[in-house]
């Protein structure tokens, strides 16, 4: 039996649209950014890009503001991620019980996740306002000193972390709740027979069984927290005095305010490698944990 050319190459023909899409929409921007990072270019139509080799990378590594942005990015990411995972798991446990109005509570709880980040950033800006904001009004009513929140270089990142935790803890909780719903009942029945306490069941059964789910949720959030831009840009734009300037924001400033496209691209290449490295580390950790089971 003779097969036509079409039949023989069917698997390639069917996958071609997806391959072309990936090449055009994902690989091309990455390759273009890497290429631009070796040039000096100010987006001018009259001055063509000038080849500078690794000079942009060298300049970046000598730049104090870059290292400050690296520090701010890690500070923001690590604290926000830890808080979101701990709170997300705790809230998922809380909302997985049966109680009256459970669906209403779950709906309200998931609202921050679906709200527009820029709009919520503006709402939080007014909540944090040092003179008329509700945050200080509450602190004063509880007998505490008012804070400067977003206006203070030392308080700005914790304030932004609170916004991020408020907005994205529901996502972690939602994933963990889905994980809890799939847990088998047998281990709990056996634990009940043995007279195990609720805490013992949580530590010895729920947490180990939920570990793969929590790791996936953590990985997804890690990638997203590292890249946070909208909330920071809407509330502080990296200020005061660059205190909340993360790598993503510094890249934007370099590219679209200072028009140093080459340096901005170099920063984004390094940032891309960092995000990819951390993601691969998480995948490796997950595989290792699965292998250890």
């Amino acid at each position: 039996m003779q097969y036509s050319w079409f039949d023989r190459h069917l698997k390639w023909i069917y996958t071609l649209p997806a391959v072309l899409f990936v090449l055009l929409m994902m690989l091309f921007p990455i390759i273009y950014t890497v290429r631009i990072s070796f040039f000096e270019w100010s987006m001018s139509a009259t001055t063509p890009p000038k080849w500078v080799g690794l000079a942009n990378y060298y300049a970046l590594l000598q730049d104090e503001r870059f290292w400050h942005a690296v520090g701010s990015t890690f500070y923001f990411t690590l604290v926000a991620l830890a808080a979101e995972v701990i709170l997300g798991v705790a809230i998922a446990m809380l909302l997985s019980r049966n109680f009256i109005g459970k669906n209403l509570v779950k709906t309200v709880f998931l609202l921050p996740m679906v709200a527009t980040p820029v709009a919520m950033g503006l709402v939080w800006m007014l909540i944090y306002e040092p003179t008329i904001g509700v945050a200080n009004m509450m602190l004063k009513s509880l007998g505490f000193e008012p804070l400067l929140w977003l206006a203070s270089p030392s308080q700005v990142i914790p304030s932004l972390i609170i916004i991020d935790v408020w907005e994205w803890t529901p996502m972690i909780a939602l994933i963990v709740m889905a994980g809890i719903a799939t847990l088998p009942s047998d281990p709990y029945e056996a634990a009940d027979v043995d007279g195990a306490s609720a805490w013992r069941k949580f530590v010895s059964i729920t947490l180990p069984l939920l570990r793969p789910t929590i790791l996936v949720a953590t990985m997804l959030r890690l990638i997203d927290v590292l890249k946070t831009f909208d909330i920071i840009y809407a509330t502080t734009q990296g200020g005061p005095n660059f205190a909340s300037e993360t790598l993503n924001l510094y890249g934007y400033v370099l590219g679209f305010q200072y028009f140093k496209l080459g340096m901005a691209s170099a920063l984004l290449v390094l940032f891309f490698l960092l995000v990819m490295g951390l993601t691969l580390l998480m995948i490796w950790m997950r595989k290792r944990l699965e292998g250890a089971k």
Partner: protein
Amino acid sequence: MRKKRRLGVNLLLSALTFLVLVVFAFPFLWMLLASFKTQAQIMSSDHFFCIHGER
């Protein structure tokens, strides 16, 4: 005794759930209230949570 303890735990968990609900809904409540107020009323933190506006 065990029944009483379970009731206490349930009450505590319900209170915690309510607290979580209030914290996560608060910015939306604030946004909703602000949408019914004038610029001056929003800027006056003392009267922000009054339903009737200025007293």
